[in-house]
């Protein structure tokens, strides 16, 4: 059994996959806590989908996928805010429009990608194909996201809990929201390499949602979320190594399973106790 668990981890690609899971999971769990608690899951999903054209353009031009995705993600984050700025249209409408438009553009561009293999990697991720360079980028992203949350923790708290008080003391909730959206774009992009465009929102939403069923303390929600992501990454790695099952879907399914368990059995709050 021990041998069975350890043997795969002697390979470099497995180690890199595990590290990637740790880094992406931590960043996603910390920002995901705010996404879930502020009711921003739809925005997270939208940004995840809108980075597709950026990824494809970067891929076709041989640029690091990360750069293309990041630009597209930030354009989306700012675009959503800009379209719904005057409340002429509702924010979720703005999200819906941007989301489908960008995704369609991405799919159209995908037809220019020759190999089916590359295509599935973009859509569904390839955590076993992560290079050392990718890992460095992920490390930088995760540190940036964690640092941003630490530095602006009190602004995030007050604008989430009582935006009226924030405005009354001269702090714009809109500004904090923009910042959070840009951070989300950054983290989502690094998660795409692990689970792909289609499923990255799961890394952002599901671990934090599961954790918020188990504890009411914000720091614990973040830590538990990161732990769940790490466990799911491990499951994904082993499923891929031994079963030849793609890692992305395994990771997401594991997270979904944890969520259902927590929803049913969370102490005092689960369905079976009510």
């Amino acid at each position, binding site marked *: 059994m021990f041998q069975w668990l350890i043997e795969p981890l002697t390979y470099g690609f497995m180690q890199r996959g595990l590290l990637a899971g740790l880094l992406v999971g931590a960043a996603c769990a910390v920002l995901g806590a705010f996404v879930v608690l502020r009711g921003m899951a739809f925005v997270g999903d939208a940004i995840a989908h809108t980075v597709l054209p950026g990824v494809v353009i970067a891929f076709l031009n041989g640029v690091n996928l990360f750069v293309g995705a990041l630009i597209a993600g930030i354009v989306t984050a700012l675009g959503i805010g800009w379209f719904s700025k005057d409340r002429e249209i509702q924010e979720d409408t703005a999200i819906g429009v941007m989301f489908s438009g960008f995704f369609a553009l991405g799919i159209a561009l995908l037809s220019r990608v020759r190999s089916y293999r590359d295509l599935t990697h973009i859509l569904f991720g390839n955590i076993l194909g992560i290079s050392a360079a990718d890992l460095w980028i992920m490390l930088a992203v995760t540190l940036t996201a964690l640092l941003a949350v630490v530095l*602006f923790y009190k*602004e995030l708290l007050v604008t*989430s*809990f009582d935006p*009226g008080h924030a405005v009354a003391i*001269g702090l714009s909730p809109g500004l904090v929201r923009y910042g959070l959206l840009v951070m989300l774009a950054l983290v989502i992009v690094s998660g795409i390499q692990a689970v792909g465009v289609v499923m990255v929102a799961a890394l952002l939403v599901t671990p934090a949602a599961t954790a918020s069923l188990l504890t*009411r303390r*914000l720091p614990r929600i973040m830590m538990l979320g990161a732990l769940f992501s790490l466990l799911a990454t491990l499951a994904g790695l082993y499923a891929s190594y031994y079963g030849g099952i793609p890692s992305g879907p395994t990771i997401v399914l594991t997270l979904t399973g944890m969520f259902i368990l927590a929803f049913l059995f969370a102490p005092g709050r689960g369905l079976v106790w009510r």
Partner: protein
Amino acid sequence: MASYLATYGRVHTARPLPGEAALCVEGLTFTYPGSSSPALQDVSLCVQPGEKVALVGPNGAGKSTLIKLVAGLLRPPTDTIRVYGHPAGSCHHHIGYVPQRNDVDWRFPVTVRQVVMMGRYTHLGWLKWPRPIDREAVDRALEVMQLTELADKQISELSGGQQQRVMLARALAQDADLLLLDEPLNNLDVPTQEMIFHTLEQLAQQQRTVIVSTHDLGILPIHFSRAVFLDRRVVADGPVNEVLTAETLARAYGVRLCTDHDESGGEV
């Protein structure tokens, strides 16, 4: 947005100007964007430091709108609102605002102590951590509102009355000169109401100014000396017994009982 960026936590130079009213509203007319009729029309009133004023009126009369305009949540027309002699918006740190219950996400995971600390944010600003002086202010405010034992509980675990005490503790910790409380007394038990009134009375004695909106007219004669009856315009303004006439009461409970403009509803 740019102007808000500049005020949060900056070194506050706007001090109360001596001899100025705590709040002076002059000829204020305000219409919500997209609305055809004004929510407030030609409202004028002045409140002196140390006054404790009840803002009364039927639903949709514009009580919340007026409070939000003073607190800076809505942007008033220029030169219609002055706080301690300064234009509204230039001295956020002097205004303690307690919003209506529905405007707060009570399920968000923060502790009681963290919420009260939010009152100190305006004295801190970007990238600054609470100092000992801030922690002392929070401890004092918790003690005054008898929340010390609940300090490390999650806000969601508290009862409605306790949550309301937390909001007042936050305003105390802020050390604000002008307190604006929007319907703070709704659904509160009598002991909690008494505790809140006692605290407000002490603030007034320290020359702080308190404005409370309420539609509970029964409590007015005991706890307030002055009432302003608002129904888009200032209908009556003066001692409570003069404001609460048969005519104003009929207006509050009769004519506009079936209002099409529910204040707690769709408006911002």
